[in-house]
């Protein structure tokens, strides 16, 4: 079993970003009841029931095609379910809730402007005053170790740097929940390490982190609790240690062991 990385404390200068430590409780719990997504006769998400109450990093794990990305998009409000309900902190899924979240996609999506401008753009959308935008953007860049690229065109950066930038942008928005869809799937190990450190840092600042991954190793390193999906169904939801030591289902056991789960 690979060693769990030492947890890194973030510099104190970033304390100003930390306004949510106590209040991320507002968006929790995340409750899903009979959540389904059906297209063309196929049930892509099949009647998922879930209650997510704890802080920390939740990992959504499963083989490719299990519906993990779809589930994330559903709880972020990018797709509408065909059945069932989603509740964040007792409130229905809508634009207001989405504003309190931030999402990072598998492939980094950056505008044709500088790294810093990408962040100030997002802050502008949130209505942050111009005077504040620059300082917050720079803080976020420092957090991600990208401050020397502040005025580099974002799309010129390497894959790993771009993804870190996307994460920095998400964090600059001060979200209560941070959702990530296979953020390191196409990155080299060093970049993966940076990203994972940032996620752990975010967790420490009280942000609820939900990460989708098919990488068991990454799940082991990050997860507090694991949601295991297969064929659109929620197979298991357990605290991480228990899941990895004693998975309840055969599919989970097979998947953890590294087999191909059809």
């Amino acid at each position, binding site marked *: 079993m690979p060693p769990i990385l030492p947890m890194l404390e973030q510099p104190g200068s970033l304390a100003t970003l930390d306004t949510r430590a106590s209040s991320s409780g507002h968006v929790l719990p995340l409750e899903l009841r009979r959540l389904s997504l059906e297209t063309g006769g196929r049930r892509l998400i099949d009647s998922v029931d879930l209650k997510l109450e704890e802080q920390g990093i939740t990992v959504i794990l499963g083989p490719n095609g299990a519906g993990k990305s779809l589930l994330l998009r559903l709880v972020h409000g990018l797709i509408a379910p065909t059945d069932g309900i989603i509740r964040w902190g007792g409130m229905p899924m809508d634009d207001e809730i989405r504003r309190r979240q931030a999402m990072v996609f598998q492939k980094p999506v950056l*505008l044709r402007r500088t790294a810093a401008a990408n962040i100030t753009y*997002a802050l502008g*959308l949130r209505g942050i005053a111009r005077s504040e935008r620059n300082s917050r953007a720079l803080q976020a860049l420092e957090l991600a170790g990208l401050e020397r690229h502040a005025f580099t065109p974002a799309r010129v950066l390497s894959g790993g740097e771009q993804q870190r930038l996307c994460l920095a942008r998400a964090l600059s928005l001060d979200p209560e929940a941070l959702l990530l869809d296979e953020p390191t799937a196409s990155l080299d190990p060093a970049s993966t390490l940076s990203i994972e450190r940032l996620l752990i840092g975010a967790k420490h600042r009280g942000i609820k982190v939900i990460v989708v991954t098919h990488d068991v190793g990454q799940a082991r390193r990050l997860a507090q609790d694991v949601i295991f999906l297969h064929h659109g169904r929620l197979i298991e939801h357990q605290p991480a240690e228990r899941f990895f030591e004693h998975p309840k289902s055969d599919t989970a056991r097979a998947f953890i062991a590294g087999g191909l789960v059809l």
Partner: protein
Amino acid sequence: MLDLSHAFASALWQIVTLDPQLLEIIALSLKVTLTAVTIATFIGFAVGGVLAVDRFPGRAAVAAVLNALMGLPPVVAGLIVYLLLSNAGPLGVLQLLYTPEAMIIAQVILITPIVAALTRQTCEDLLEEYRDQLRSLGASSAEIVMTLLWDGRYRLITVVLAGFGRAIAEVGAVMIVGGNIDHVTRTMTTAIALETSKGNIALALALGMILLAIALVVNVALMGIRRLASHFAYA
């Protein structure tokens, strides 16, 4: 056989000595077309952007009509504007017929569909990449349109150039609504038509070359900007 060389020479002489009549014609052509392009760009960007972003009912029909209008013959556009601005027409009171303003209006009608249709395509292509992220960040439809337009700015330069090309080259619309009046509404293209009808073929050709040269300069300048852009991975 045409005595091209002699006539070309005298035409070039006109250019070199900056013949005031020639300059007047060039200035009018540029002012009419550049103004029309500017107005059409504002309208076209907005329409194209909204069409790409907003999923309103009937969207496909509007897009189809827009694409069809790209093929609107200039002379037909001219006729429509003429009938509107004629003293016997609904907008006769404006007394705009046979003025450069009428020519601008006609060219705006010609260029806007091209700009709108190509802008829509550009924005749709960008949206493929950006849609989820922008929605995640909470951008409204209007904000998405503005973002796409700015982000696609270098591709959109080509779109504007397409509109410019169509306008600077056309003669049908400006001839009908402008009347090719000496010193008032005579542009390069209508002057070329006139000289051709007077049999001054070589002069007409020379004017045509000047027109091409101007269009070339505009294109080179704007494509140069594009080059710079791709150098910085903005394109």
